[in-house]
């Protein structure tokens, strides 16, 4: 199962759990990062927000472990713990001195496998999630991102906020959450990544021992059907928000899912050519030379079913239409004219170095393996650098032509109310 060059070991345990391990010599730290294929995309529509709310409730203990004991145990040993939820995954991690892992990993496993989800804690923690939603609603960039997601993804779950809504969360019960938890927190949906100052053999023993005794999965309402949208033409939405000091323009295109990883990496290169750094095309023209924008950036976000390519500008309201038209024009140009060797090399070096810079610490490495392990396969991240380096300007040009067309995209505009 291990590819020749992949520096980590990937082991499938008997119960179906995937373990990824990499020893890093000379570091006294270990990171344990557990990824579960139970993000917002696993929710039925009427349970929107469940995956994220569950992530909070995982920390509320088990029959053996009262609420707060886990956090206290990790942090008083000088470690750190936290969690995050997105559409494709939820993940839970601890960073701790290597010699403390045998004592703390079983706690984390107990929480993940046997979360009690007590009713009184459920009610209290719901208040916390509602505060999280209130805070997000005071953030104009979060509001803009949600509006854009809904417009581009239509009924696909990627269009729903991971946080869910207050209205839906008020109707959910601890029983429903236990059902969701037991159905999805199963060994075949879980990847345990351990990186840092611990050898393979003790790691395997530790993980085998801690991650056992999964409850049998109960019947659970199925995930919302996930049709990948294919919208024709251009869709625009304009929102007016209070307290906004500057307009925003976000343009978005759908990209391929994990099945076309090479294409996805090519879109990463196009994002770098367009708007990574001051000498990129759009930053140079629109911010440095013509001074039409405060800032402009491009981003490619890889997701399991379909990815998202965005170009976002912060600018004066009067310049929005003009900038949108210029961006469309530059995309047509990108698809029509050859990309220079210097531009291609620049983008390749930027991204290859970024990759090196973001795998320096055990936590970064664990995150990378866990993410790929969850949406594809861990060793797929290994193809990133060689794939980038194999791209030619011509191939990129045809990618731009296929994916970044000015004839089919979504644009979300925020103006001050």
């Amino acid at each position, binding site marked *: 199962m291990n590819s020749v060059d992949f520096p980590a070991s990937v082991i499938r345990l008997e119960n179906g759990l995937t373990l990824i391990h990499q020893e890093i010599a000379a570091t006294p730290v270990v990171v344990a990062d557990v990824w579960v294929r139970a993000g917002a995309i696993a929710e039925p529509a009427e349970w929107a927000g469940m995956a994220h709310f569950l992530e909070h409730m995982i*920390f509320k203990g088990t029959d053996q472990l009262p609420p707060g004991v886990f956090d206290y145990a990790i942090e008083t040993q000088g470690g750190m713990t936290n969690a995050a939820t997105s559409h494709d995954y939820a993940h839970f991690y601890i960073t701790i001195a290597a010699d403390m892992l045998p004592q703390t990993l079983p706690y984390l496993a107990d929480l993940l496998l046997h979360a009690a989800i007590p009713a009184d804690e459920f009610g209290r923690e719901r208040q916390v999630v509602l505060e999280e939603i209130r805070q997000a609603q005071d953030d104009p960039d979060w509001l803009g991102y949600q509006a854009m997601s809904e417009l581009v993804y239509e009924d696909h779950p990627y269009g729903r906020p991971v946080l869910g809504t207050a209205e839906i969360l008020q109707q959910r019960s601890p029983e429903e959450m236990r059902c969701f938890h037991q159905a999805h927190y199963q060994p075949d949906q879980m990847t345990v990544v351990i990186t840092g100052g611990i050898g393979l053999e003790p790691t395997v023993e530790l993980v085998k021992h801690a991650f056992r005794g999964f409850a049998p999965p109960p019947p659970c309402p199925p995930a919302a059907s996930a049709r990948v949208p294919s919208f024709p033409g251009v869709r625009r939405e304009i929102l007016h928000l209070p307290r906004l*000091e500057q307009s925003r323009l976000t343009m978005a295109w759908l990209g391929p899912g994990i099945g076309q990883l090479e294409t996805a990496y090519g879109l990463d290169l196009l994002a770098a050519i367009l708007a990574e750094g001051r000498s990129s095309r759009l930053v140079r023209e629109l911010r440095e030379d013509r001074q039409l924008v405060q800032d402009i950036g491009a981003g490619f976000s890889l997701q399991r079913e379909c990815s998202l390519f965005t170009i976002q500008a912060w600018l004066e309201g009067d310049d929005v239409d003009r900038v949108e038209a210029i961006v469309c024009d530059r995309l047509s140009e990108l698809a029509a004219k050859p990309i220079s060797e210097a531009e291609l090399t620049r983008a390749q070096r930027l991204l290859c170095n970024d990759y090196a810079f973001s795998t320096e610490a*055990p936590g970064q490495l664990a995150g990378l393996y866990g993410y790929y392990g969850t949406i594809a396969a861990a060793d797929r991240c290994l193809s990133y650098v060689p794939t980038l380096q194999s791209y030619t300007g011509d191939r990129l040009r045809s990618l731009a032509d296929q994916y970044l067309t000015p004839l089919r995209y979504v644009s979300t505009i925020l103006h001050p109310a």
Partner: protein
Amino acid sequence: MTASLLQAPRLHRTVLANGLTVLVLENPVADIVSARLFIRAGSTFEAPHQAGLVSFLMGLLTKGTDTLSSMAIAETVESVGASLGTDAAADYSVISLKTVSADFAEIFALAATVLRQPSFPLDEIDLERKLTLQQIRSMQEQPFTVAFNQLRQDMYGEHPYALPGIGTEATVGAITQQDLVEFHRQHMRPDNVVVTIVGRIAPEAALAQVEKSLGGWKAPATPRPTLALPPVTAAPTCSVVTQETNQAIVMVGYPAASVKHPAYPALKLLNTYLGNGLSSRLFVELREKRGLAYDVSAFYPTRLGLSQFVAYIGTAPENAATALEGLRFEVERLQTTVLSDEELQSAKNKLLGQYALGKQTNAQIAQLLGWYEILGLGVEYDQQFQDMVTAVTVLDAEAVAQEFFHNPYISLLGPEEFVAPVAAAQAWA
């Protein structure tokens, strides 16, 4: 995790003939070199009418030199996939760079050039001013920032810590090229600079690189500028910003010890106890037990001058009064409640453990070493700090709470109907 990494003989400290300090640490693990060029001049050196000058100046360093245009600098850096950035803090400013080892010499030489020979082109000044003014206005979009700026202003009055490093619309609007040239001439001098280099590079090679780029830089005969800060008179207030937000922000701030004050390690421990992590006192009492917030925490920045100890919470507007009472109760109870030995030991483990976790990457190590050196604490402070934290007793912690946690400055933000009555009640308290 480098308790051993930071110790001699692995860490090389050299002072060049021109007074420039160099710290080099070889760390061959990854093919990465991180470097920092620290300058002993932060926003505290600004005259009140020039607030934001240092931040503005640092932003312009990479926008033109005697021989290179802004775009030429960007192209040099980006074509090799390196990073080169600048930052201005209250007590220092810094140029940061990161490269794969093969590109280090070229990008370090460029960093040295932008430090020594910036040209502050007029058209780049205009663009930077336009972008900065908009950035100042955009701070108003973030409720936390608005509430914090208000707290800082109330607490510090005429002291430079009163303002965000970026300055105000009025002061940034008035900055001239002459101001930049003058500030650069006064403060950017080799005996005011500390260079740290950490990564896959031999110490001799790193030192040779610094000698080559910065060794010929002459220090002026005039003495280095010294700092004279206005005193801060404590006069706690309660201020309100009314906004129709979904959440209210409640913040309390206590004037607190500078990094050189003996109370510093104990206050760092109390900050950890109250506000650091999922098992911290504020998190457990106000979030886990009462469901009042998603975000509740405390922070105590490390400052050469008078610092501040701030606790804050974002909560539903109708809970603003309860949240304020809860924050104050938790901080001020430490005046009369002695922590148990276990509580104090837990806070020590947490603080020292996370301190160690903050030294994992080359960039983090380069930052920490240079920061201690530029603040005048010396690289030995890395160990001294840990020793001082270990030595704090429960009685020390209580004494420090009694010294610092009196009447706080209070900053409130939220819908008028909810926050105005809370402020009015404070006026009567």
